[in-house]
């Protein structure tokens, strides 16, 4: 009974959040469109109303990174901008890009900067992008995604260090309690279902910190991405830069821990005719790179797709321009939200499991293969 009550409460809360979220989002969206999006349209309110709602732009705007963190209505949290240009580093607040009427303006630093389609560019006197100069601009700003990433790092450090501290305090004599009892099954899951089956009992321990860190980082960012308001709302794990960084880390770890057998199987497949070996080598070599690339694209696509799906459902209300559309849109959005919760966990699991599998492939000892190889040689000699 109790669990059913909790479930219905959860559904209620989620739908309320979704509605509140969508309300804010589109209020803001309209404001953006009105005030900044189309300066020409600002003078013609009628024309502006007609093209005010662009679904693709709205959705992409919520999936993309941003230089300020939208809180509610017209309120946004300005974030620090860090730029590196041939003239050196520059630090300033992203609030400098907006005037008191929330209009996008130029900021005059070492160069003239302006946010064009969400990215900081160097502009000339006419506010047109100076492509040549912009090539020398390196943007290390604390964007919404970076800030959200820091939030997730803070959450992870707090929760996990607390959980680890509990072992020090109570030792191993008592059953796990509190945060510890929540974290331990996940850690055990990663160890028993991900690391040991894929890497093997002998070598898994070395890779446990790496796999656990990846799993928890992806998991927390997936979950934070599903929270529609302030500490969440950023689409970190659905950002290609985030998944690329993790995929590169996996690539580095896999190739650094690869043994002789692994490379032999890539460049000179044992037990094959030499022509086959020549044929297989480039394919296997491409495989070395496609593995992490598949990791990168899988996580990015899954999380982004989920966000797009939820946003599209909410957009139905604005497409049909009637509040009654929410009767269908909101339950569907809640349903997809539920699936997204599952996907959030599933993608963290799949990313970690595939990483573990690649590490397992790279560190596997091919004893039986070696024998086969010798057998073939012997046959060839006879």
């Amino acid at each position, binding site marked *: 009974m109790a669990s059913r009550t909790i479930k219905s409460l959860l559904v209620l809360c989620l739908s309320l959040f979704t509605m509140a979220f969508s309300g804010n989002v589109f209020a803001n969206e309209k404001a953006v469109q009105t005030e900044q999006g189309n300066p020409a349209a600002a003078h013609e309110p009628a024309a502006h109303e007609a093209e005010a709602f662009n679904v693709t732009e709205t959705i992409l705007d919520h999936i993309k990174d941003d230089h300020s963190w939208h809180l509610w209505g017209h309120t946004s949290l300005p974030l620090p901008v860090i730029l590196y240009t041939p003239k050196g580093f520059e630090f300033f607040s992203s609030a400098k890009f907006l005037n008191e009427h929330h209009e996008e303006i130029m900021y005059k630093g070492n160069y003239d900067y302006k946010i064009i389609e969400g*990215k900081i560019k160097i502009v000339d006197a006419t506010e047109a992008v100076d492509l040549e100069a912009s090539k020398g601009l390196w943007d290390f700003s604390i964007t919404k995604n970076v800030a959200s990433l820091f939030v997730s790092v803070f959450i992870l450090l707090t929760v996990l260090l607390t959980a680890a501290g509990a072992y020090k305090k109570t030792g191993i004599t008592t059953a796990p309690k509190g945060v510890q009892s929540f974290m331990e099954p996940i850690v055990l899951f990663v160890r028993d279902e991900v690391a040991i089956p894929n890497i093997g009992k002998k070598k898994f321990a070395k890779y*446990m910190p790496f796999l656990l860190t990846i799993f928890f980082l992806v998991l927390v960012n997936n979950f934070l991405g599903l929270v529609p308001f302030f500490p969440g709302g950023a689409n970190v794990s659905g950002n*290609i*830069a985030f998944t690329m960084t993790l995929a590169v880390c996996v690539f580095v770890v896999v190739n650094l821990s690869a043994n002789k057998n692994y490379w032999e199987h890539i460049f000179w497949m044992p037990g094959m005719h030499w022509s086959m070996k020549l044929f297989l080598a480039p394919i296997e070599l491409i495989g070395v790179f496609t593995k992490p690339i598949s990791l990168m694209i899988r996580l990015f696509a899954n999380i982004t797709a989920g966000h797009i799906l939820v946003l599209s459902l909410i957009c139905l209300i604005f497409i049909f321009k009637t509040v009654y559309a929410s009767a269908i849109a909101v339950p569907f959005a809640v349903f997809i939200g539920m699936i997204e919760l599952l996907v959030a966990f599933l993608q963290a699991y799949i990313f970690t499991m595939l990483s573990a599998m690649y590490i397992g492939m790279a560190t596997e000892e091919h004893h039986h293969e070696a024998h086969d190889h010798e057998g073939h040689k012997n046959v060839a000699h006879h």
Partner: protein
Amino acid sequence: MFLLEVNPLVLPDIGLVFWNTIAFLVLLIVLGKFAWKPMLKAIAERESGIEEALLRADKMKAEIAAMQNENETLLAKAREERAGMIKDAKETADKMVSEAKDKAKQEYDRIISDAQLAITQQKNAALTEVKNQVGTLVVEVAEKILRKELSNKAEQESYIKQIAEGVKLN
């Protein structure tokens, strides 16, 4: 390249890559040292502890079973011993009783035979004495009679004659 430029979604920002690398490395190092290591160590310790405890429990069980067996055998042995002891004691007692009986009988026999001997001796002695006394008495009586009878001469002579006739000369 055209596609990449068209869709900003698949264009990684250097800033996020940079901060993400730092965040990941920080997490990896800090969590690796202060969270995963103690956690995994504690979990492994607990697991080995549980395993050990289970093994110990099994061992204890076996030990208890062995002890029970031992106890039973000891008890059986003790019972056997007790039975043996009782039997022995009974035998000893029986033996003692029979020995005592035998001894008593022997003594009895000895006493009886001694008594009989003594009685016989006494009887013999008494008989001897009686015989002696009777002899003396007879002699005395005979003397007295003889004295009386031989007081006259005629009688003396007839008697001597009588004896003399009795004596056979050969």
